[in-house]
């Protein structure tokens, strides 16, 4: 009976030649399939789902009610939304300091003295540690009674100043903590960049009498453009994604003054303040729209480089 199941030699040839002919068209899809399925299910599709949910009133359990753009209309009148948005702007601006500061440290360390490799990696150290841990460390630092800066505050006569409980300054306290690992990240990008600058061009510049600042400005900085680009992109994304530090250090407080869109969304959708999935999704959609500007810019640049054949 079995011989009817095995293909005749002729069939086999045909099949293998079909496979041979189409192998190159089919193989990439076979290789792509697992990753693509995962990525679509967990990343691409949920983006659209979130956008859809933002048009509903939904507590996550009972059936959702379609309410059109009511969530967005409500957001426009929500004081907390504007506070969060403004804090995001403050994060964006202050976080940008990481780029020049990282460059400064990189320039300072770009030497070949004994032990410099170890020193560079110790400077990079803060980036390897979890933001949650950095957040805990700085919370304690700022603590007005037992904290590390308490003696300093006493010296200048500001004893008992609790930065993280001060509505006006708490956000800066968190951003300062956030800058710590971000500066390390920018520094390492610039160290790599500096390492790859062509020595010829520097020599040529020096021959032409360029020195110090003018050499840096006219010859070094333009060559560091790829590093600067990446440093700026990761810093912007980092600033807009800031969540861990806020969740650890202040939970958005005092009185919502350190909220950012990412945390505000979480608070609305998943915390004891209520399970407002629709409202949370509307906030997430707005945050997504803001980030899409940068993503589009980044992708456009990559596309341009691809077309140039890089």
């Amino acid at each position, binding site marked *: 009976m079995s011989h009817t199941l095995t293909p005749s030699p002729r069939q086999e040839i045909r099949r293998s030649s079909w496979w041979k002919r189409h192998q190159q068209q089919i193989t990439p899809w076979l290789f792509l399939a697992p990753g693509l399925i995962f990525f679509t299910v967990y990343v*691409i599709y*949920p983006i659209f*789902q979130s956008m859809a949910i933002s048009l509903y009133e939904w507590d996550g359990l009972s059936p959702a009610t379609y309410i059109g753009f009511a969530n967005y209309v409500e957001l426009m009148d929500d004081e907390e939304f504007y506070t969060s948005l403004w804090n995001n702007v403050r994060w964006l601006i202050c976080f940008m300091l990481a780029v020049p500061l990282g460059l400064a440290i990189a320039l300072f360390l770009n030497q070949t003295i004994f032990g410099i490799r170890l020193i560079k990696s110790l400077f990079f*150290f803060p980036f390897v540690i*979890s933001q949650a841990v950095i957040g*805990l460390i700085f919370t304690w630092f700022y603590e007005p009674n037992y904290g590390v800066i*308490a003696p300093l505050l006493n010296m200048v006569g500001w004893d008992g100043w609790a930065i993280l409980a001060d509505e006006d300054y708490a956000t800066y306290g968190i951003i300062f903590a956030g800058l710590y690992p971000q500066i390390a990240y920018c520094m390492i990008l610039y160290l790599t960049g500096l390492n790859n600058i062509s020595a010829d061009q520097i020599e040529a510049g020096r021959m032409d009498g360029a020195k110090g600042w003018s050499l840096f400005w006219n010859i070094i900085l333009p060559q560091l453009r790829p590093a600067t680009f990446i440093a700026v992109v990761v810093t912007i994304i980092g600033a807009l994604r800031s969540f861990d530090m806020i969740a650890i250090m202040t939970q958005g407080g005092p009185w919502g003054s350190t909220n950012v869109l990412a945390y505000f969304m979480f608070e609305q959708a998943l915390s004891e303040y209520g399970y407002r999935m629709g409202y949370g999704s509307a906030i997430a959609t707005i945050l997504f729209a803001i980030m899409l500007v940068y993503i589009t810019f980044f992708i456009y640049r990559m*596309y341009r480089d691809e077309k140039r054949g890089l």
Partner: protein
Amino acid sequence: MFPTPIEKAAPATRFSYKIAVPIALVIWLIPLLGVMMTALRGPGDITAGNLWGIPSELMLATNFNDVFTNTPMWDFILNSFKITIPTMIGAVALSCMTGFALASYEFKGNLLLFFMFVAGNFIPFQILMIPVRDLTFQVGLYDTITGLVLFHVAFQTGFCTLFMRNFIRALPFELIEAARIDGASEFKIFWQIVLPLIRPAIAALCVLIFTFIWNDYFWATVLIQGQHAMPVTAGLKSLNGQWIAAYHLVSAGAIVAAIPPVLMFFIMQRHFIAGLTLGASKG
């Protein structure tokens, strides 16, 4: 080299540079040194405000012992490993395949798919939070390590694909061509030619993903509720609530949580930095 090598400078400048570097390093590491010093102390020093002076008693062993015996710290650490290692393997394996497909075949939509992976990398987590949490609920994986790992694998595939695709793209394509002419099947090309060549990329991605996932806090709070599956970042946060003003314990806990990624970094430093600075030097 820029700035001018310090060896060419005057002896005085050279000397002051060599002094300045360690001073700058100590200032830079003050937050971390503070934690290390505090983990040595007893509660007495902390209430007395003795944070930088000589510890009145050395309590390092007691503090660590306290952390491990009175809290589920071991479980948190173990959970972190159970989350991090499968994610690392999964995301790197998937992206070896996607990266190979996108780098070495011409087909319609290739660039579009590639950019989709790239873009997915940069989106805010919050836009995924509700649907992913819902999906994880529906398949019965909420509050489990598996549920968290599945999501991490999917998300990290984006970054890994970007990395792998560019890495494979930079390999000499003639190797693949030659193998094709010799009649090697496409799978054989992947397995016997490409995989051995991308070993450095695999190493770099493994360290990076290990660190990223170990340090994740957001998804651990969204997809995990109980201590039985909680990784060390979320665990530390929950312990922080119990340890009010017990900064010697907070410090010991923070050190424990930081050790694995720090070790990983120092052992695999070259790969780590190569991975992180991808693109920082390309013209």
